[in-house]
């Protein structure tokens, strides 16, 4: 990992622990996690259910704060932040992509993408629209700007969600099982998009239970029982585009 010395640290976790109290019992969801993620990395965080990966994702996404330990996002310490401050931090530094897209119903693609900028008063209405259109073009939906969310396929909806995550130009893109609801072919299409974004220098964290996805990312962190079990660089990144080409195009009859 010597090459990383010269790269900017986007995320740094120092012995992060998170406990939940369920009834009388204390559940240790995270038992001391430490790692750094550098700018431009495509990291998959893997683990079975109950391994603590959702809790870790909530920590990384500033939706939750650690019980102990330190989390530094893009140079800012999150642990002591108030609810309101974390909301602003999410707005400026984080892009979320969810498994079930979470688009606003009956709302056009471009309005969905505009949403994060609506909560940023520094961005004018005109700039907001321009940036939303730009983001949609980047994910290949330049021709679907004014389609409503219920008029789109799953793959298209996920592209809108990715555009929405990109529109605020975040420090890190957090994907939570982003291909979980999609068929194989569409999954690979989305993976291709993630690889393209990676190639453009985006920092991506992809939380999944699907080990196959790890082969397309640059680094893989394995979680088990709230601890890091494996943290490996992937020197042999497969091309999602090539894999996609091998999948037969479904024939409509």
């Amino acid at each position, binding site marked *: 990992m010597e090459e990383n010395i010269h790269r900017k640290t986007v995320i740094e976790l120092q012995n992060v622990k998170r406990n939940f109290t369920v009834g009388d019992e204390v559940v240790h969801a995270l038992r001391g996690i430490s790692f750094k993620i550098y700018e431009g990395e495509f990291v998959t965080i893997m683990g079975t259910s109950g391994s603590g990966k959702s809790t870790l994702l*909530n920590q990384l*996404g500033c*939706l*939750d704060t650690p019980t102990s330990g330190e989390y530094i996002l893009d140079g800012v310490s999150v642990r002591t932040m108030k*609810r*309101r401050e974390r*909301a*602003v931090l*999410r*707005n*400026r530094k984080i892009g*979320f992509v*969810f498994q079930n897209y*979470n688009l*606003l*119903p*009956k*709302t056009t693609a471009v*309005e969905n993408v505009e*949403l*994060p900028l*609506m*909560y*940023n*008063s520094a961005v004018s*209405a005109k700039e907001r629209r321009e940036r939303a259109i730009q983001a949609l073009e980047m994910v290949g939906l330049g021709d679907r700007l004014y389609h409503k969310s219920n008029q789109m396929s799953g793959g298209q909806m996920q592209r809108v969600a990715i555009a*929405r995550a990109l529109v*605020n130009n975040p420090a890190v893109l957090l994907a939570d099982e982003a291909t979980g609801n999609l068929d194989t072919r569409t999954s690979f299409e989305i993976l291709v998009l993630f690889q393209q974004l990676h190639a453009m220098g985006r920092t991506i964290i992809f939380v999944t239970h699907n080990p196959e996805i790890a082969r397309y990312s640059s680094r893989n962190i394995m979680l088990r029982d709230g601890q890091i079990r494996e943290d490996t660089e992937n020197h042999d990144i497969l091309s999602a585009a090539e894999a996609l080409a091998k999948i037969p195009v479904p024939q409509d009859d």
Partner: protein
Amino acid sequence: MNTTNLFKIALKAISANKLRSFLTALGIIIGVASVIAMLAIGQGSKRSIRKQISEMGSNMIMIHPGADMRGGVRQDADEMQTLKLEDYESIRDEARYLSAISPSVNSSGQFIYGNNNTPSTIYGVNEDYLTIRQLKVEDGEFFSEQDIRTAAKVCVLGKTVVDNLFPDGGDPIGKVVRFNSIPFRVVGVLKSKGYNSMGMDQDDLALVPYTTVMKRILAVTYLQGINCSAVTEDATDQAIEDITAILRKNHNLKEGTETTEAEVNDFTIRSQEELATMMNSTMDLLTILLGSVAGISLVVGGIGIMNIMYVSVSERTKEIGLRMSVGARGIDILSQFLIEAAILSIAGGLIGVFLGIGAAYAIKMAAHMPIFIQWWSIIMSFGVCTFIGIFFGWYPAKKAANMDPIEALRYE
């Protein structure tokens, strides 16, 4: 997050769910409409009844000579001779707030026509008496100024007198009847008024020029009374003040000084205040009753907003979670829901205003009920509905703002 964006977000949320939004506003629409319609009916009835009562003479003022003690015996006011024709003339010329004034001298006696006779009272008055007592001439005409000046022996008979003197239904106009052996030519017949609330027959009378009664029947120079009508019921008090001042001046009554007390009025003035007061309190009660019924429906409308907002918050939990995950603060979510509630209640209020006015007119058309729409009832119901909408929107909005984004995102 600026306000413009919040309004855009709220408007989008409303238009994305038109039916739900309409149902939310419906409570307020009905509330406001019923307040306006109810108050319009209440006010309309009040005015209509007020008009009816004033037809009975609620703004009537009666002036009588004051009763006096003579040798320890209190005298009948009618026997007093302090009220003169000059008093009538100066009140007529000087007093403000009066729309009609008539002297009053009366005498009882027997009317005779042919074989028929009947006891009745003869009232010496002028033309204004018709206005004051809300009487109308049904047949023929009232006697003229000329008749008053010449103390003509003409009379206008009440229905009861006519029925008693002309039992076979003959036309009394132009006939000569006798009152205590003085012949009177009948020039008109009054429209029947029936019995009053005291059980007195209001048609058992005859009107003649006051000069005739004074000169030809009673041979007196004083008046038994003066009847006036104030311009409006509310002006009654001011009119009484004016009359009092004029009469005190005419009668040379000394005003009070530091050392002496003012001389006591040698006349009494009465108005129908009691009737007016009773009427107003009854009507106010009616308006309060209708208003509170409508007010309750307004509150129910507000609870309707709260109910649907509450459901809407639960239904949109995931949306709230998403908004929070992309950077909406609690205050942003709170504002969004409050603005939604405000927009719905203001829009509902506006629709309600038009619906209420429409309903009031529909009731007027269909049920022929009198209505009167007061601008303050519109302003008030609109203001209250906006307040209620925001007030009841607060709790669900607060609930939404306090949601945990993790829980909200996971909500199914």
